[in-house]
């Protein structure tokens, strides 16, 4: 099935979220190729140091729009992004969690706010350069979110919060393509962004220094130094702020020990970092909150599925049991290392993404 066939044909107006990168540039081109009236929009989210969605990126996207002959607008969401994404990001670190701001950027900025704007502009859908696929289940008639054809680039981990209503209105023209194909096609079309560099980092933390980002976003709220303890509570050393750490981390632990030690818990309440040997990282499961079921309803019975607990995690089999308060309990078939509160657990069966939820805490014993 060609990439273009996944788009509905017909003369429709489609808003394309253009970040200024090669993926969304080609997505715009493919929307045009499919015969729709594409309207490119860059969400101006962050300042010039950001890896994406700065004014310089808006200019790159505008240039692509000019070449494609489509209308183009910039929407300034800097203030809102700072409040809803960046501050939430910093607050999560300060509470001992490891957040994924990209999920909120997708579910709220691209596929809620932008989608509402798109409707005002007479468009029924928003297309993006995400590597993901959407189709319809022939039996149920419900929309399905499916992993992308390119497993290395699949971004469904960040899209698990999409609802049926949103999935009716999104388009992912790149879902069937590999990254190499995308670049090659963009080059062939003469898009200036074809060879633009990319990084895997969070867009507003382009250098990967999360602690510095937290310090920038919430200056004056930083927790002070505190103890690093072992599983029994014995102090082994001192840390310089819990926001420097995430579960599974080895780096940055100033502790003298014979065995290699890893962060097993970031304890914001007691301002301490708990460490242990590799075995101590293994957990039996996770308690999730705010689970989104893509079908729209949680299953009546527990299900078995593949569970991914971080981006690019291959995933492990597990049993997922919804709870009465919109969360779920996940029990892995085999223990899993480094399950971090604040990350997401996303469930798939085959390449169909069933949903996902936010990791509230690890479950140590079955």
């Amino acid at each position, binding site marked *: 099935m060609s990439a273009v066939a996944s788009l509905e044909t*017909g*003369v*429709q*107006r489609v808003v394309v979220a253009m970040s200024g990168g090669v993926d969304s540039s080609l997505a715009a081109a493919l929307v*045009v190729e499919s015969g729709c*009236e594409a*309207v490119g929009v*860059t969400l*101006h989210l962050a300042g010039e140091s950001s890896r994406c969605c700065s*004014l310089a990126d*808006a200019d790159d996207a*505008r240039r692509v729009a000019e070449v494609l*002959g489509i*209308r183009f*607008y*910039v*929407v*300034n969401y800097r203030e809102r992004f700072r409040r809803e994404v960046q501050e939430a990001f910093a607050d999560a670190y300060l509470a001992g969690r490891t957040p994924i701001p990209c999920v909120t950027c997708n579910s709220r900025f691209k596929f809620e*706010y932008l989608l*509402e*704007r798109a*409707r*005002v*502009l*007479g*468009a*029924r859908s928003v297309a993006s350069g995400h590597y993901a696929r959407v189709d319809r289940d022939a039996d149920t008639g419900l929309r399905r979110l499916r992993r992308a054809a390119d497993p290395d680039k699949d971004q469904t981990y960040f899209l698990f919060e999409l609802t049926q209503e949103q999935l009716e209105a999104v388009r992912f023209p790149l879902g069937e393509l590999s990254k190499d194909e995308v670049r090659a096609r963009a080059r062939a079309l003469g898009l200036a962004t074809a060879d633009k560099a990319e990084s895997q980092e969070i867009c507003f933390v382009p250098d990967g220094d999360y602690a510095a980002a937290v310090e920038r976003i919430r200056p004056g709220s930083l927790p002070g130094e505190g103890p690093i303890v072992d599983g029994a509570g014995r102090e082994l050393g001192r840390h310089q702020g819990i926001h420097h750490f995430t579960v599974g981390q080895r780096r940055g632990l100033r502790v003298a020990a014979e065995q290699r030690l890893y962060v097993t818990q970031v304890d914001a309440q007691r301002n301490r970092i708990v460490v242990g040997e590799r075995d101590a990282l293994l957990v039996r499961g996770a308690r999730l909150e705010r689970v989104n079921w893509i079908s729209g309803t949680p299953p009546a019975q527990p299900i078995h599925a593949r569970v991914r607990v971080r981006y690019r995690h291959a995933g492990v089999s597990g049993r997922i049991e919804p709870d009465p308060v919109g969360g779920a309990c996940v029990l892995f078939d085999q223990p899993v290392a480094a399950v971090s509160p604040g990350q997401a657990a996303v469930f798939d069966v085959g390449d169909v993404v069933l949903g996902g939820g936010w990791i509230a805490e690890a479950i140590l014993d079955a």
Partner: protein
Amino acid sequence: MATATRGTAESVRIYLDHNATTPLHPEVLEVMTRVLRDCPGNPSSTHLEGSQARAVVEEARGQVASLLGAEPDEVVFTSGATEANNTALLGLLRGRPPGHVLSSAIEHPSVEAPLLALEAAGWRVTRVGVGSAGRVELEELEAAFEPDTALVSLIWANNETGVIQPIEAVAELAAARGVPVHVDATQRVGKLPVTLRGLPVDFLSLSAHKLQGPKGTGALVRRGALEVEALQAGGPQERGRRGGTENVPGIAGLGAACALAERELPERAVELARLRDRLWEGIQAKIPRVERNGCPEQVLPNTLNVRFDGVAGELLLQALDLEGVAASSGAACHSGSIEPSAVLSAMGLSPQQARASLRFSTGHGSDDAQVDAVLALLPDLVQRCRDAGDV
């Protein structure tokens, strides 16, 4: 409203943003084409080609002067009103020991930026505020004069609201105190008559592309004994006031546009106002919760600044654009900035009200059918924006 399905074919555009720029008038295009093709010389050269180009420049100078009721040797050609404003402010004051400048809170960025530069160099600047009508209060302005006020700089008609400032009265106040006056007349020239003769205004800025002339050309009218330092140092062109080979075709275009305006004023203003008023009446009749920004009695004939309560203005503009209608707001720029308009804020509008404000400006080519089409589109688009809320 059939907007959900639409082809990529070109559709007819309704251009209601003449305050941003105006399309080149066919007569102006004809003049410029002829000059581009037939007058290739450098006006400073002594040979035939040079003197032909020189003649074009001097004829245009006369046309600009005639429109403004000024003398030809008072006209200095520039690259536009921005350069003219910079010249009047920085070119006049830069070399002097810092003193005081009297201006307003509603100036165009090309005046505000030089004012900031002067402040950085030690000058004091008073920016007289405006009332909710958008006009400077004469008493407040009068009280703001200081012993070392070296210049009054005031916009004649504000670009966002179209509100006309009391230039004649201000000029009298300044003349009584021996203080020179600079007027940014960019939005007024070509829409309403300007007669400098007898008016104690020392400097006036204008821009060709606001009166159906080409972009990239304007003029500073410099009267009396005051000299300005050339901002752009080079050859002795424009009597040493502005170096660089003259933009002959651009200048020809400016001259032709001025001649055209002189022929068509004041009647031109009547038609512009009629269409603008029809638009405003229709908006009031069909759309609830709308307010006009700026005093309607003292406003440019073509300008309508309206706020649509509860609307994200930039979103409404995008929706209008996709339906073929070009309008704007004061705060619009490529970054999608939602900084509230300084002009509207100075008039007392809240950030939400400023954000909800749009500017429509009629011009050559505007007609009743277009006004009808806009009135047919607007109510639904405004409602959609209101339904979307804060997105």
